[in-house]
């Protein structure tokens, strides 16, 4: 499906990550989930001090190392080699999740399969019958962080909506998401429902609503 033919250009993975990064202020403690969220780190300007947390016990995580400067003892939650910034530190796994569950993170950015209009998130399994199950730290992050932002494609590969009246996949956590960043728009989850914060140029409100199961309103 080429939406460009329809007069607008959806964001790519990099564009989505950059859009999220724009909204993260200096001084926040942030966990970035696996996938597109991990890319967000590359778009926070280096002079803006944002402290990144990784589930495996890192605070103050830095960017990927220069070639031949890898530290094999330092990987992020996606098992990629990373660096640590001056001021960074290590904690054990229980303390790492004390940070998460205890409400100490200002923000967690997660990937999603589905988000419901009430903020329910499904991002770990497409069926209760699945054998392969990868919960990881997502459930703790979703209930623990002060804010949960989800970044995902607006619709599935075969065009079905991911932003729903109610999730059909098993939940990660109930009513946890406050904002959704997609390749088409940024949406706030409010007590009055889903509010459109902004959209890619050339995409009309009606076009966006057509790709969204839940009812949208203008912000």
């Amino acid at each position, binding site marked *: 499906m080429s939406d460009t033919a329809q007069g607008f250009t959806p964001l790519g993975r990099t564009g989505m990550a950059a859009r999220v990064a724009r909204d993260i202020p200096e001084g926040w403690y942030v966990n970035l989930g696996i996938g597109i969220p991990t890319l967000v780190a590359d778009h926070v300007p280096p002079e803006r001090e944002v402290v990144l947390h990784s589930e495996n016990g890192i*605070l103050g995580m830095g960017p990927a190392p220069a070639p031949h400067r890898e530290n094999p003892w330092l990987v992020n939650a996606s098992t990629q080699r990373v660096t640590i910034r001056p001021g960074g530190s290590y904690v054990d796994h229980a303390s790492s999740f004390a*940070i998460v569950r205890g409400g100490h993170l200002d923000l967690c950015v997660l990937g999603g399969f589905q988000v419901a209009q009430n903020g329910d998130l499904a991002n770990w399994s497409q069926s209760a019958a699945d054998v392969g199950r990868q919960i990881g730290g997502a459930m703790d992050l979703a209930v623990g962080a002060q804010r949960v932002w989800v970044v995902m494609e607006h619709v599935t590969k075969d065009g079905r909506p991911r932003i729903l009246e109610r999730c059909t996949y098993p939940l990660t956590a109930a009513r946890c998401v406050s904002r959704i960043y997609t390749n088409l728009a940024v949406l706030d989850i409010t007590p009055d429902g889903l509010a459109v914060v902004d959209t890619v140029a050339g995409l009309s409100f009606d076009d966006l609503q057509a790709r969204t199961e839940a009812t949208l309103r203008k912000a």
Partner: protein
Amino acid sequence: MIDKFVRSIAEAMNGIRDGSTVLMAGFGEVGAPHALLDGLIEQGATGLTIVLNAAGRAQKLGEPVQGIARLVELGRVRKVITTFLRSGSVAAEAVKAARMEAEIVPQGTLAERIRAAGAGVPAFFTPTGAGTLVAEGKEVRDYGGRPCVLELALPGDVALVEAWAADRWGNLIYRDSGRNFNPIMAMAGRLTIVQTHHVCDLGQLAANEIVTPGIFVDRVLHVAAGDPKLPR
């Protein structure tokens, strides 16, 4: 740039409200945030619940009334939650005269309740206190054939902490037995205020040696307090 240093006691204490629960670290004068406690006395908040290991020593005649005893004497403490309420202390006298409440808690339960608050665990079972006065009015359940008491997390609106060294991100290290309640109270305070003996540049504290990461810390005040003194 993240910079958690404040320049004065007044700035450190700013905004502490009447009715706050204040976690106060230290064990036997070591690792105790004396300057911050003095600041709290000065600041004026009242109706406080104070959480600390020991609610003061027996007050000797002619000895100045300081620290927690002073705060109690001023009538600013509604309740203490502590493991030692010593006969003859200003706090014990206030309890006897029904001017203040006291909740006496086993030390391990106190520590675990504080850590639980910092870790987002609202309640836990512990074998400590089962079958004693401490368990009165609490849910008791058997685990592995042992009765265990349900205890609640104990968060602070404010935590007062003393560190040996700190940097501008609020990363902390402690010295020797000065560690005690400091790391867990730092975790459990909604507003965590630190007095530190030494100031380090960012990166000077080794990542593997930092005990309290700055994520738990809101404000840091440099107070070269000198060595802890033993009670006379």
